[in-house]
């Protein structure tokens, strides 16, 4: 086992464990903090994949902005930041079975796919992912349209946020 595999397994365990805690903990702020741990684990995965820009963006946008917004939203909505109700409903057995079957199916499928065992080719020296990304974002034969549409999406989100959270006036 190489060092990268060990790092991958450790961060995968952190991601999955924290994700389970997000849905099972009763304290909402704790859930948000476990979510932060999950997101940080994903950042580590990006780092393993040599996606430096995405690693940092993951931390800046997801931990620095979205997690903060979640915490603000939790503190905004409830006085008692605790959930008292039942955590499982009647269908949990069936749901677990379906989940297990889906996982098994996926496992079988992926096991037969040769992509799963392939090793990524080493990046050519002097390869700079950020430069490639920047070029791809604004070149006409790559992502220029999604890039511009993203700004429309942000505009819609901005207007929506101002409308929903806006002061009554």
């Amino acid at each position, binding site marked *: 086992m190489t*060092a990268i595999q060990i790092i991958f397994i450790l961060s995968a365990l952190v991601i999955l464990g924290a994700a389970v805690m997000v849905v099972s903990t009763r304290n909402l702020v704790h859930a948000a903090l476990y979510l932060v741990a999950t997101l940080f684990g994903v950042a580590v995965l990006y780092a393993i994949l040599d996606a*430096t820009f995405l690693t*940092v963006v993951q931390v*800046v946008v997801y*931990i*620095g902005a979205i997690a*903060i917004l979640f915490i*603000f939203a939790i503190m905004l909505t409830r006085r008692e930041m605790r959930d008292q109700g039942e955590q499982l409903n009647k269908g949990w057995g069936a749901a677990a079975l379906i989940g297990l079957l889906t996982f098994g199916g996926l496992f079988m499928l992926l096991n037969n796919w040769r992509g799963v065992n392939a090793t990524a080719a080493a990046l050519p020296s002097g390869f700079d992912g950020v430069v490639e990304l920047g070029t791809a974002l604004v070149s006409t034969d790559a992502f220029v349209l999604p890039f511009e549409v993203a700004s429309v999406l942000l505009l819609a989100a901005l207007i929506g946020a101002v409308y929903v959270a806006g002061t009554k006036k």
Partner: protein
Amino acid sequence: MTFWSDPINFVAQWLRDVFTGWGWNPGLANAITLLLGALVLILFAMLLDIFLVWVERKVVARFQDRLGPNRIGPFGIFQPFADIVKLIIKEDITPAGADKLVYNLAPILSLTSVLLLWAILPLAATIYGTDLNVALLYLVAAGSLGTLSIIMAGWSSNNKYALLGAFRMVAAMVSYEIPMVVALLIPTIITGSMSVKEITLAQGDGGVWFFIAAPLATVIFLISAIAELGRSPFDLNEAESEIVAGFHIEYTGMKFGLFYAGELLHAFTFGGFLAILFFGGYRFFGLENLHPFVGAIIFLVKALIGYWVIMWVKYTVPRIRIDHMLGFNWKFLTPLSLVVLMVTAVLNQVLAGTETWVYALVMFLANVVIGWLTLEALRAYSRSQRKAEEPAVESVAQAAQH
């Protein structure tokens, strides 16, 4: 590579050779060398931090016409050690109803988020932790971990003041992050790289220090750095008369010490980034070529000057109200920074391939014009505000006469 020309890397290479000589495999040898390097870096940062406690106390004293610490050691330089001993022998109190785990994690995360920045600070041409190609965004990412630590501290303390302080601080930090990133974009555009090493190099041979080419970006970065630090005039998080100490009100002993140490080191580190991004980093007219340690000293002096400016602002300017602070950011600093960004981008394209001094001069003049227009707009705005208020004031005065 000899010991004299590049001591740090020479020692690292020597250690690696020794370790592999012991029969360790190269990966392990590298890892141990890396660990030792990181340890040296952290110890250096913490020692510097102890020194900064003295600097801060001494400088604030002089600003307030006092002597400051002067009993322990010459000029009171050993005062911080006494402070540390005092913090260590204080009782560690966890308030009733606090969320213990989160409460204890917050100061650790706070210090870590600051020490993280030292990974990318180039002290000299050959003395740096790592050369990250997204270093400037990494700076912001470390800051967002700091934001998280503050909200954790504020929420877990089970104290109303702490929560209020955390809200205010986080609102300020996230708001001022926008102009800060835009200000960081300007050296990026001029250099064509986000790596701090490249940015420093671009200000050397055949380039100018970026505060000449981008004076407005320098000022915007300084202002948003002060807000990010939560220092006066943006220190609403610890408005003593309202919410006492803000988010760290409940912390005692070394846990408070970690917040305090983190804050001081953070301020110094931002002084360092100011030096790197706009004042040539470790460069000083070729003097840095003498020896890497000379470069490191130049860098530290520049960073200290940047830190001194931050202190100067802190101890001169009074605190402003939260609506003014957020309004200043959203209605003034953010649009201004975007205008500066677009003008810089356009000019950078137009001036591509010109001589350095032409480039710097045109950029500087453009910044002066933007600054002048901004001031004119502000003046017109405040004049209109005054006009709107004047009749009201007069009528009140008349009413008082009757």
